[in-house]
């Protein structure tokens, strides 16, 4: 049974000085499962994500990833371990094209003995990019185009395709569609469905109720730095989730959060 769990946090806590941004978060994610994290602004969603991805260092608590207790020094560490994150700020280099961005920091190279002057294997990277985009069903008209010349939706797709290209063990998306139009949102959602079909687990931070009910298996609600509900999609509805978010209801077993 434990083999089935890709990520678990026990008593995960983060204090910023006197501010208790996150308290005793106990969270599990199974392989292939898509979970949404919801909650009001300042409820601790992003704080929670930042502790897992190593962007910040937790005050206390344990993170068990893929069966091992982990402590990431930074997002890079987390990425090496197999956690790919699409941050709200996309972390793309505007003046580079799609393959360059996908492979930034992990380029395919030739003549590696040349050290920093080793040659880029453009051909292999381009091919891998096309494969990756195909896998995620992302449509980018011209992968040689620089990010600067792309729309917000295309940028988001590139950022997501980057996570999908590298067979991550866990993908985390922090409000991936917050700044997108209707059609662009639809495309991003399609990518998420593709990930689901491929059995890649996902944590989705989102405010969008329709999107959450469309995409995920389970909804975890945060309130004032605590988890206040853990709901299977089938057992709940929008009204119910809003009640948890606003504090009108608290699930059994999470009375601390009240």
């Amino acid at each position, binding site marked *: 049974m434990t083999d089935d769990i890709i990520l678990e946090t026990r008593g995960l806590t983060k204090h910023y000085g006197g501010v208790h941004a996150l308290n005793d978060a106990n969270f599990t994610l199974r392989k292939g499962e898509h979970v949404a994290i919801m909650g009001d602004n300042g409820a601790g969603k992003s704080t929670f994500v930042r502790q897992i991805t190593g962007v910040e260092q937790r005050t206390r608590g344990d993170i068990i990833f893929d069966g091992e207790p982990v402590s990431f020094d930074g997002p890079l560490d987390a990425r090496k371990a197999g956690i790919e994150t699409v941050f709200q700020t996309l972390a793309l280099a505007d003046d580079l094209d799609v393959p360059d961005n996908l492979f*930034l920091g992990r380029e395919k*190279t030739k003549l590696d003995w040349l050290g920093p002057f080793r040659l880029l294997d453009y051909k292999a990277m381009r091919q891998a990019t096309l494969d990756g985009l195909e896998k995620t069903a992302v449509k980018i008209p011209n992968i040689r185009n620089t990010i600067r010349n792309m729309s917000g939706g295309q940028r988001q797709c590139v950022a997501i395709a980057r996570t999908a290209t590298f067979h991550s063990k866990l993908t985390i998306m922090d409000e991936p569609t917050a700044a997108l139009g209707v059609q662009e949102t639809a495309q991003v959602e399609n990518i998420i469905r593709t990930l689901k079909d491929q059995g890649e687990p996902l944590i989705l931070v989102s405010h969008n109720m329709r999107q959450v009910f469309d995409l995920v298996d389970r909804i975890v609600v945060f309130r004032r730095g605590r988890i206040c509900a853990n709901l299977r999609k089938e057992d709940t509805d929008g009204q119910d989730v809003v009640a948890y978010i606003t504090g009108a209801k608290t699930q059994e077993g999470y009375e601390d959060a009240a």
Partner: protein
Amino acid sequence: MSDTSEGIGGLKYDKSKKAWPNEFNVFLALIIIILIFEALGQLLPYMKGQSMLFDFNTNRDGTILNMARIKIMILQVAIIGIISLGVTQVIISGGIDLSSGPLVGASAMIVMSFAQTELVNGQLNPKAVFDWAFDMPVLVPILIGLAFGAFIGAINGTLIAFTGIPPFIATLGMFLICRGIAQWWTRGQPVSFPTESFAFIGSGMMPVVWFLLLAFVFHFVLKYTVYGKHTYAIGSNEEAARMSGINVRRHKILVYMIASMLAAFAAIVLSSKNLTAQTGMGLFYELFAIAMAVIGGVSLQGGRGSIIGTVLGACVFGVIQSGFIYIRLDAFYQLMAMGSIIISAVVLDQWRQKRATSRS
């Protein structure tokens, strides 16, 4: 992947709107500037219908080109051009290097001290700096010069990468330090009389050979190596580069080291060409090198530009400089006109970029 041309979500890509390469604009500007000078040659009464680049009458070289003027033109920009190759990389990485001009001065003094010949016309070298360093193999002064450049560049890079002070300030400080070193080295005395093999490095058209050779090398390096890709990435979005696992600090140090080594190499070529080194060498070179890069379309915001652009920028620079002399414009007007041209180049580039971004 033919189906990629039509995507959902407004992902259509109109090929006709694709901006042509920036380098082409610079090339166009070069042609236009040449035409303007040619037109001035025909129109200005005191020019008596002379041509700047062409020579239909004497035809000494068997071509219709005025090779003498063209040679001087490229020779003039070749040495500053070598510096601008390094400055281009620094600017692409999002920095700036103001120290290259004084570094030329300091490097020239140091290099020349190790390249002196013992006997001048049978007498002891009157400008001798080290009496134990006569007639060294030519590799010695070259390596000492490059090592000095690398050292200064490493200090620049380390300051910028680790203290977080703006590159402008770090290299401005180094600007003064290097000029100081140049004067301190011999207490202001010029250093002269190099060995024959050292004098060969900058003789004749050799500066142009070095410039083109190095331009080719660094064009390749910037375009086809991990070093180049990371340089663009850091200039484009430093945070993204860091998140992607690029060692941004180490890379910046490397970029500044390479830039300073190129400036030191320019000093070697320059002192060899002049057969002497003086403390004031390289005056304004840092600014001219930056100007060449900027005219060539290297963006001061970082992330954009190319060696081809910089080489073309150097050509524009050379044509303007020699064009002013050709139409007999007084030196002070030349500086004013040059300044205006640099400003217009940046304004035009920004305007073009704004148009390119708003289009999508």
